[in-house]
């Protein structure tokens, strides 16, 4: 007989049980985070490096798994994303420190980093493992605990990757429970996590309803909005290079990144040359009839056909009944208007690119704005141009917080083909109803306590030379502070003391246990 209480009285789906389940995990995360917040810079570096290396090693393994489980994307591209989100991410931040105090003797201000606490992170289905890698490393770099909620469509690969990274982190010395995963996420449970007072910040990457729910939770949230990037190819651009960038971007991972181009806008005077370059680079230019067929396939009455997400161009063409060469990397569908009535001007997470021929630069820029008004506000736009006037005019006009210039937008906006911060959480700022307009990075998960001296010159800034990056606050005073206890979950309590000689008395054992618990933090 199954003795589970749920067989007799099942309350597992009640709001109370869901809240309680969330509170249990968050409380453990809170203990872990409190412990981890006392780690110094070299301890944190050791853990983040171990985790980044381990993640990198399994980049391809999890890329294959994600494609198999979700049906989205391309293994090769996902492998690259996983690599970029592991060692690549760590490398980008190698000279930045989110752990040690800063001393500014000119302004007489000391700044001490304070981790958020417990991060609740949503993991999307389109970029599951790369987002797991990204958010885990962000949390570890900033001494936060993180509880992750994978998208149900990518639950297995995400869950396995999270458990793997948690194990590696703990083996490298991180407190137990610093990285946790919700094994069976569902909307009411996720809502309980988002609303809990124990959640310090929600890192929301995913569909718009989930992001809005994060913002409505009453907790601080760093959310993103949908993408729908216009790409304007100006007559001043290197058209061949532009075509190659656009194809490389739009076909990358079958366009599941929200940063990929959605509609190409170009000018009458260069469209013929650009079209030739695009075809040469691997695009299939649809005629009117083929465009209608693709539109019918991609958009149902209910909206975008999710079957098409992350599928390759030839598969989509076949489903739409359009014959294309097997080498086709993307489908380009000419459109005569940009707006709600033209569905192909909406966001399409697949390698299908709308194309609009504008009569002037002014019209092109105006239509780019129009496209972002439909969706994608605050997100990304791309531009291929050499003329500085056009660059400035376009960037000034479009309501986004990143304009990718002469580069593939997918990789560029996510910080992998540009010097923007590498990120799988693209802040859409005020245009996109988000609290952050930058690429989300570690700096968003730490706030700084500022110790400010009086302005008067009689107040002399202290000598803090001894407080280097490995300084640990709890070691500061000779007299042990009562509120700054070093502890960890590792090491058993006194119930199982280390093997000792009989001559060692109980107080010695206790002292040894205390030292062991403290040392667990210094590995």
């Amino acid at each position, binding site marked *: *007989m199954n*003795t*589970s*209480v749920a*067989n*007799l*009285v099942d*309350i597992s789906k*009640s709001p*109370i*049980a869901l*809240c*309680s389940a969330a509170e*249990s*995990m968050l*409380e*453990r995360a*809170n*203990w*872990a985070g*409190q*412990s981890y917040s006392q780690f110094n810079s070299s301890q944190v570096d050791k853990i983040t490096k171990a985790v980044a290396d381990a993640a990198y090693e399994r980049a391809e393994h999890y890329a294959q798994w994600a494609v198999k489980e979700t049906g989205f994307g391309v293994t090769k591209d996902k492998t690259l994303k996983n690599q970029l989100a592991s060692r690549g991410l760590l490398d980008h931040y190698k000279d930045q420190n989110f752990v040690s105090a800063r001393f500014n003797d000119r302004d007489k201000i000391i700044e001490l980093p304070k981790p958020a606490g417990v991060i609740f992170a949503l993991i999307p289905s389109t970029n599951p493992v790369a987002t797991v890698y990204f958010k885990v490393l962000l949390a570890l770099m900033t001494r936060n605990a993180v509880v992750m909620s994978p998208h149900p469509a990518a639950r297995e690969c995400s869950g396995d990757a999270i458990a793997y990274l948690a194990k590696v982190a703990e083996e490298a010395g991180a407190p*137990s*429970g610093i990285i*946790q995963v919700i094994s069976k996420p569902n909307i009411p449970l996720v809502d309980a996590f988002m609303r809990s007072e124990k959640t310090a910040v929600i890192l929301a990457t995913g569909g718009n309803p989930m992001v809005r729910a994060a913002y409505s939770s009453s907790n601080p949230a760093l959310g993103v909005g949908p993408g729908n990037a216009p790409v304007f190819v100006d007559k001043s651009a290197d058209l061949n290079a532009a075509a190659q960038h656009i194809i490389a971007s739009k076909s990358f991972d079958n366009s599941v990144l929200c940063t990929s181009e959605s509609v190409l806008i170009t000018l009458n005077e260069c469209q013929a040359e650009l079209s030739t370059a695009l075809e040469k680079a691997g695009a299939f230019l649809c005629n009117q009839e083929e465009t209608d067929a693709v539109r019918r396939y991609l958009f149902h009455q209910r909206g975008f056909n999710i079957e098409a997400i992350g599928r390759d161009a030839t598969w989509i063409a076949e489903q739409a009944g359009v014959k294309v060469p097997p080498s086709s990397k993307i489908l380009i569908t000419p459109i005569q208007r940009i707006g709600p009535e033209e569905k192909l001007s909406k966001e399409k997470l697949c390698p299908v690119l709308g194309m609009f021929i504008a009569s002037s630069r002014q019209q092109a820029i105006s239509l780019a704005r129009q496209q972002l008004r439909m969706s994608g506000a605050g997100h990304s736009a791309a531009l291929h141009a050499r003329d500085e006037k056009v660059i400035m005019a376009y960037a000034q006009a479009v309501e986004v917080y990143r304009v990718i210039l002469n580069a593939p937008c997918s990789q560029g906006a996510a910080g992998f083909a540009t010097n923007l911060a590498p990120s799988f959480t693209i802040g859409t700022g005020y245009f996109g109803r988000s609290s952050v307009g930058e690429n989300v990075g570690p700096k968003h998960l730490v706030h700084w306590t500022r110790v400010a001296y009086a302005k008067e010159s009689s107040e002399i800034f202290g000598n803090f030379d001894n407080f280097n990056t490995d300084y640990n606050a709890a070691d500061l005073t000779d*007299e*042990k502070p*009562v*509120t700054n*206890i*070093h*502890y*960890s*979950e590792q*090491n*058993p*309590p*006194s*119930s*199982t*003391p280390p*093997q*000792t000689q009989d001559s060692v*008395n*109980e*107080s010695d*054992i*206790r*002292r040894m*246990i*205390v030292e062991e*618990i*403290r040392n667990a933090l210094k590995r």
Partner: protein
Amino acid sequence: MNMISEPFQRQETNTQSSIANAKLAIERSAGYCLYTVGEKRFIDLHLDGGTFNLGHSHPELVEVLSQATKRFDMGNHHFPSMARDALAQALTDITPGDLKYTVYASSDSEALEIAYKSARSVTEKTTIVTLCNPASVLQAEPATHTSDQLQESQFTTLAYNDSASLEQLFKQANVAAVVLDPCNLIGSKSTDIQKVLLLIKQLCSNYNVLLIVNEMRSGLMRSGKMWAIDHYGLIPDILLVGKGISGGLYPISCCIFTEKSSSWMTGCAVQHIATTGGAELGCIVALKVLEICQRGEVVSTVQYIANFYTVALHDLQNNFRQLLIEVRQQGVVIELVYPDSQSATLMFDNLITLGVLVLRSTTEPKVLQFNPGILMSQALCEEVLNRLHIASEHTAAKRSLSRTEAGK
């Protein structure tokens, strides 16, 4: 029953007066806090010995009890029941060895009585030996829990590590069972405890004496593992579970037997059960308690709390060497030992004044039992520690007026 010793009497009086002075009429409780009629908040490290291990009115327990009333009631104890069976099976699944039959009671003392009667029936002997901490053996009450005057002579106490005397007793007296509460052993080195316990187990086996382990205070993760016996690899003949298994909501206690210790039940399955023992609603709450205690997050959190206090109390002891002379701990079963009963009383009072409730030891007047719940938050643990620190300062200062060595 033995005469209550004088220090114990004093302590009882002091405890009562402290609580009375603090006007501790509890109006409501939530989590690990109690609120008096005047809305004064007390952090509960008394826990009624572990009854409120999961906190007061844990929302999931309240919910499961509420939902259970739609399907169950107390149940008719003459008939088999799904709820009782499920709890018995769940207990079997998480207890070691061949502990596999559960008899239910509606109170802890009733469970003890069932254990004693069982042991007497199985061994056809009468004396019950209570093992306790050597430091408290003179003041310990034999665990009679009975008003039967005729039976009082059949109870005795011994230090748990005095195996020579125990064997002597086994030879001379008509010993039916040895009773052990693991909480009484925490002042000793755990390697020694393990050695001694296994020796006791062997002696019991040699002399046809049943070993009863009372896990009412130490069980349900309070020792850091599900049962304190799990630390030592000890398998008793009877395991007693009470207090926290009720969730603080529905009274229930359990005696878990092996094949041998339950042999007397064969033939009459209902002779051991009382009308209110093992009420179905209590079984449902208990099942939920067991499920919560086994969650990975909870197991991890207990370890954090235990380690937090291991380090924190070590530091506190360093600051108050003359006042806090010893800290005993296994998991979140913690005892703070003071130089004398007056210091312990003063600490107890100062903690009450500061809004922290702890428990006076019934056997050692100089000991305060300090019982963090297994779901306590880091913030609350830290708050308790702050108050403990202040109470220690006040106590040390006051004691130094008459006894300089008690100062900081």
